[in-house]
Structure formats: structure tokens, C-alpha cells
């Protein structure tokens, strides 16, 4: 009997010890927003899109049910990068940073967790040009019923950053209710062979379009567009 009791006690202790592993204190999105730059944060979030991988560093758009986090140069092997598909749950510990207005997490580390979530697209057309837009920073968003404007004095509907090799971003301008906004097809996110890159190359001034993308920030809103379609 003593032996049985001792075995039960040992087993119980083991279970308790396992349950009492290091507790991770997660940062909520509200806490993240309120935190000062350089604060260490730990978030559980889900990969929505991957921008690039280079030199063992990945740049990734992520979002959970509360808000979005842009992970800049996350140390990541190519093997792990390939595992990060849309919806993959990850836990990220890093530092909040702000670069040209873009709030991001840098100097971080991550682990892949079980679970999946693909964020819905939020229509932010109504808050374009208002102070509320910043609340949607880095989220997967949509802009509907936009009109293509001339990008520059040449009257072109878009501009290449590298017109010769097409190895870089595409820029274009769209308007709504008399206000014009600059949008971008980020080359590492959507290269020249993607539908969105080709769709922007086919744009004409005056076209009415619906757009989707990630609400990146660069000295103001600078959405990284992933989809361009004729307005519904």
C-alpha cells in the first residue's frame, strides 16, 4: 500500500510540476498600443502574409482577433519561414518600435504554436483621411469605390520605382470624396508576376476600383495593396 501511495504521490507531483511551467505573460493589443516605444512585448498572433525572407530574417504581417502586428526582420531560418503559412499561430517576444510612423515589433524571437486564424478584411473606406484610420494600422483592410488618379505630371496612372528591371515597388494614387491617397504594391510582398502587380500596371486614370491590402504606415498611411479589382 505504501508503495502505491508513494507512486501516486510521485505522479501527482510530476503532473503539478508540468502544469507549473514558466508562465508567459502576454501583452494584449490594448497594452501594445499604449506601451512606449522600446517596451518588451510578448504577443500571440497569426501570420496573415509574408513580405520577405533574407539573411535569416523575415518580415511578416500578422494579426489576431484584437489587432495587427508587423514583425520586422524577425530572426528566422528558411526552414521555419517555410512553415509560416497564412493563419499559422506564433508567439513573438520582442520590442515595440516605431519607424517613420509604422509601429512594429523588432529584435524579436518567435515560436510556432498550434492554432490557426485568418483575419477578415475590414472595410476602412469610411475612415480614410480621418484620425481614426491609424487604429487599423497593419490590419488586413479594404478600400472600396476608389478612383484612380494621375500619379504625376506625366499623367501616368502608376509609377515604377525601377522602370527598367521592374525589381521594385509600384506606386499609384486613388481618390475618394475629393481626397487623394498614395498606395503601394510592395515588391517583396507582391512581385511582378502577381495578379495585383499586373492589375496596377493595367490601371487607367479614372478607373473605379476596390482594393485590399495591409495598412502599412510610412510618414502617413501607405497601404501595401494585395488585390485590385473593378469596383463592385
Amino acid at each position, binding site marked *: 500500500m505504501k508503495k502505491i501511495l508513494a507512486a501516486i504521490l510521485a505522479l501527482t507531483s510530476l503532473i503539478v510540476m508540468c502544469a507549473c511551467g514558466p508562465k508567459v505573460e502576454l501583452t494584449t493589443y490594448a497594452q501594445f498600443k499604449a506601451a512606449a516605444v522600446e517596451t518588451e512585448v510578448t504577443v500571440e498572433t497569426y501570420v496573415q502574409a509574408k513580405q520577405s525572407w533574407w539573411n535569416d530574417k523575415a518580415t511578416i504581417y500578422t494579426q489576431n482577433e484584437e489587432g495587427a502586428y508587423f514583425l520586422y526582420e524577425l530572426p528566422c531560418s528558411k526552414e521555419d519561414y517555410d512553415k509560416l503559412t497564412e493563419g499559422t499561430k506564433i508567439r513573438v517576444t520582442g520590442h515595440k518600435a516605431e519607424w517613420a510612423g509604422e509601429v512594429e515589433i523588432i529584435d524579436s524571437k518567435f515560436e510556432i504554436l498550434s492554432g490557426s486564424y485568418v483575419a477578415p478584411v475590414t472595410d476602412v473606406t469610411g475612415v480614410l483621411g480621418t484620425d481614426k484610420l491609424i487604429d487599423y494600422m497593419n490590419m488586413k483592410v479594404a478600400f472600396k469605390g476608389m478612383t484612380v488618379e494621375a500619379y504625376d505630371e506625366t499623367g501616368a496612372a502608376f509609377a515604377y520605382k*525601377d*522602370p527598367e528591371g521592374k525589381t521594385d515597388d509600384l506606386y499609384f494614387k486613388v481618390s475618394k470624396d475629393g481626397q487623394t491617397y498614395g498606395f503601394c504594391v510592395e515588391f517583396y510582398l507582391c512581385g511582378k508576376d502577381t495578379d495585383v502587380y499586373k492589375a496596377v500596371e493595367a490601371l487607367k486614370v479614372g478607373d473605379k476600383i476596390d482594393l485590399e491590402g495591409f495598412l502599412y504606415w510610412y510618414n502617413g498611411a501607405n497601404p501595401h495593396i494585395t488585390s485590385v479589382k473593378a469596383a463592385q
Partner: protein
Amino acid sequence: MKKVLPLILVMLVFLPALVSCHGSHGMLEFQMPETFDGSKQYELVFWAKNDTNKIQTKVYTDAIASFQELYPNIKIKLSLYGDYGRIYNDVITNIATGTTPDVCITYPDHIATYMTGENTVVRLDEVFKDEKYGLHGSELKFDSPGFDQIVPQFIEECKIKDGYYAIPYMRSTEACYINKTFVEALGYEIPETLTWDFIWEVSEAALAKNGDGTYKLNGGNVMIPFIYKSTDNMMIQYLKQAGAGYSTSDGEILIFNDQTKEFLQTVAAHSNGAFSTFKISSYPGNFFNAGQCIFAIDSTAGATWIGSKATHLDIPKEDLIEFETVVKMIPQVNPDAPYMISQGPSLCVFNKKDPQRVLAAWLFAQYLLTDTVQITYAETEGYVPVTLKAQETAEYKEYLSRAGEDNDHYYKVKIEASELLLKNRQYTFTTPVFNGSASLRDAAGQLIENTVKSVRRKETVDDAYFVKLYSDVNALYRLDQINTGESVMQKALGKLPKTAVFLLVSLGAVWTLIAAGFIYRVVRKKRAEMREKT
């Protein structure tokens, strides 16, 4: 003999395979052909960088068009990159697969790494001197500069180890762009030569706040008085000015010294608001133009983006404020013995199996030194032409004399930035180039970036911190492997496959057997002859 023949046959079968596999190792050194074959068609690949400046792209395309008119059998395919790091990375990858571009704009630090592939980059010493196709050669269809007409400092920067492996394309330096209006509002006068002490003092004074938390100087919520774009240059130039170690010419790492630590301690003391970097905060020019920065240190090649009347703008127009911009040499340790970096792109020519193709590439590279290309490209930014020939043309002198006539081609800040280098060329320097010098440069910047971040994150920055910082940065950039470890190229190529190792070992064994057999037969023959004689 019957036994030896199969061995030779085996070797003949395997040797070419061994030679051709695994990248472009073993390419023969380029020899200048007697004449250029104008009947053969060449499509050359040219990798270049543009600074988000459409006019620069046009200079390239115009140069290509006019070159192709002169040499209709040469077609140039241009690929533009956004940064030098990507070019470097792609070249390394393409050396491994034998698909390098023909001509590439790059930095000498990077060329030193490319050179770890045997004869990958064309050595230019003899090429320069070639009577027909060398610099100012008799058979050229354009007026290229002679060797003596290239600015001596700039061509010397292209000397790596024992020879020239590049030609300079453009040169720039760093400038300190100053909001004079702010400096004077704080009660200071800008000295003729800036010192670090002056910048730190004014920067701290600019942090004074109103009761509501806004900055007294600009009335706003944002003020980073001093922002440095390239922290690797910041460290390198400080060490040079202070007479402290950085590296020796053959790659001995000297950067982890007490003066480096002293400088980092100073940086740390001002990282609670007075100082930041491009990597941490963003482009200095953007803060500068918005009246949120007093001292912006950036390349003279970015001068068109700086000032309240800047030609190019990266922030909303409504964020611009009016102020007077002054362009000065970077801050100095000793104003009487100033030092500033010489930087800027160079051109290297990659070796190929067909010497005619290499000659075609060399002709194009050399064409980029002609006056029109040099002047038009230099005028797009605060660059200077690398040839005295171009610098001394009436056209270029007139351009310089018209500073401030408009805010575009004759933008004052841009021309003053070019003049800064033209007038102070004697104070410029470059760092030693060796395989691994690019990593050392990155490490130099990382020391500052880490220190600033640590202060901002309220970490303890003390002696123990710097011991760990040195160790971390040393490990991150593998600086301890620069002389003894495997090269970047070896890493790019990877380990030899087992089959190749087996074949190489077999080959060695076969050669040994052949040699042994040969010696055995010679000895036996000699003995037989001696026996016959006796």
C-alpha cells in the same frame, strides 16, 4: 603501359567534370584580345543601383543608348537595385552558379569578397595600360580619360591587395546638414569646423520642454536633435579622427578597443532623446525637413532630399517648415586635423570564358567614365565626378557656379554638398579592404545601434555591458573567422558533395599511381641499361 592507359582514360573522363563542377573556380585570368571582334553580338548584363531618382535611371539608359550606337554589336541589359546589399548578395549567389553580371556597380569591400572566387573579377592593371582598349586607348570609339585624369585618391580606393579590381564611378562623402535657424534660436553660433562636443551640447540644449510637454524649440511633440544615417560611418570616422584602431590592411581586427568604448559611452549618454539613428527612427532628412531635427548627418548623395526647399520630398508638404540649411563637414575630434570618409560606387568587370565578351564589358565600364556620363550623373545628387577631366570642364564649373538658381537642378544644398567634397578631398580616407571588411563595417555600426537601443530600453550600460556587446558583435559578424575561417565564398558554395570528394581522392590516387609507375619504369630501364653496359 597497357595498365597505365586505362588510368589515363579514366582521368580524361573525370577531370573535365571535376573542373567544370562547383561554380566558376579555376577560370583563366583575362587576357586582352589583340582586336575587338565587332562582328559578334554580345548581350551584357549590367547591375546598378539607383537612389530612387528617375534622372539617375535616365542617365544610365541614355549612356547605354549612346554606347550601343557606337558599338552596335553590344547590347546592355540594365537591372536596377534599391540597395548595395542586395547586389552583393546576388553577386555572391551568382558566382556560385557562374552567372555573374558582366559589369556591376558595387563597393570595394564587396569586391574583396567576390575575389575569393579565382579570377572571378577582372584584374585591371594591364587592362588600363592596353594601348588600344585601355584607358584613353587608340581604338576606343569614345573619349575616355587617361589613368592620370582619374582623381588619384578615388582610383587608389579601387586597389585591392596587389592590383586594381575596379574603377571609381561616383564619389560622395557625408555631410552634416544643419538647421541654422534652430541653432541660433538656442543661442549658439555654428563654428567653421564642427566638433562632436558642439553637436552633443546643442543637441542636449534642444531637449528643453514647455510645461505641456512640447519642445520649446519647435513647439511640437517630436524633437530628435541629432540623427545619423550611417552608424558604420559614424564609428569609422570617429576612430580615424581619434587615431584609434579599426583594422589593419591585411584584416586584423582592431575595433574592440578602449577608444571605441569611450565613444560608445558618449553615444549612450546622449541616447535618451538627443541622438538617434536611421535604423531606429527613420531618414534624418525627414525629421530635419519637418523641423524635428537640428543636425542630420547623411551622404552628400542624398542632398536633394534635405532642406525646407528640397527637390525631393518624403513627407507631406504640409509638414515642411521654413528654415535655413547649412552644409558642413561632419563633426571632428580635432578641427585642425579633419577626416571624412570617401565613399561612392565603383565598377567591376566580371571574368567570363570568352575574352571578347569581357573586353566588351570593359569598353562599357570605361564608357561610364566619359565626361557626359560623369557630369550628368554627378549633377543628379551631391556626387562629384571621379575624373579630373570631367571636373575641369567648363560645363561642370558653370553648374557649380549657379548654386541656388532654382530648387531643382541648381538646388543650393545639393551643390554645396558636392563642393564640400571637391574642396576637402585631401581630408578624405577609406578603410582597408579585405575579405571580411564588409562584415567589419557592419559590426562598427552595430555597436552604436545596440548601444542606443539598450539605453532606450533602460538596460544597464556599464563596463560589463560593453564586454558582452563586443563579444556579441564579434560573434554575430564572425570577425574572429576573417583570417582563419572559411570565406564567405566557401560558405556560399557549401561543402563539396561526397561524390566530388571521392572523385578528387581517386584522382589524387591515380596520379600517385601513374607517377609511381613512371618512376618504377624509368628506374628499371636505367638498371637494365646499366646491366647491358656492364
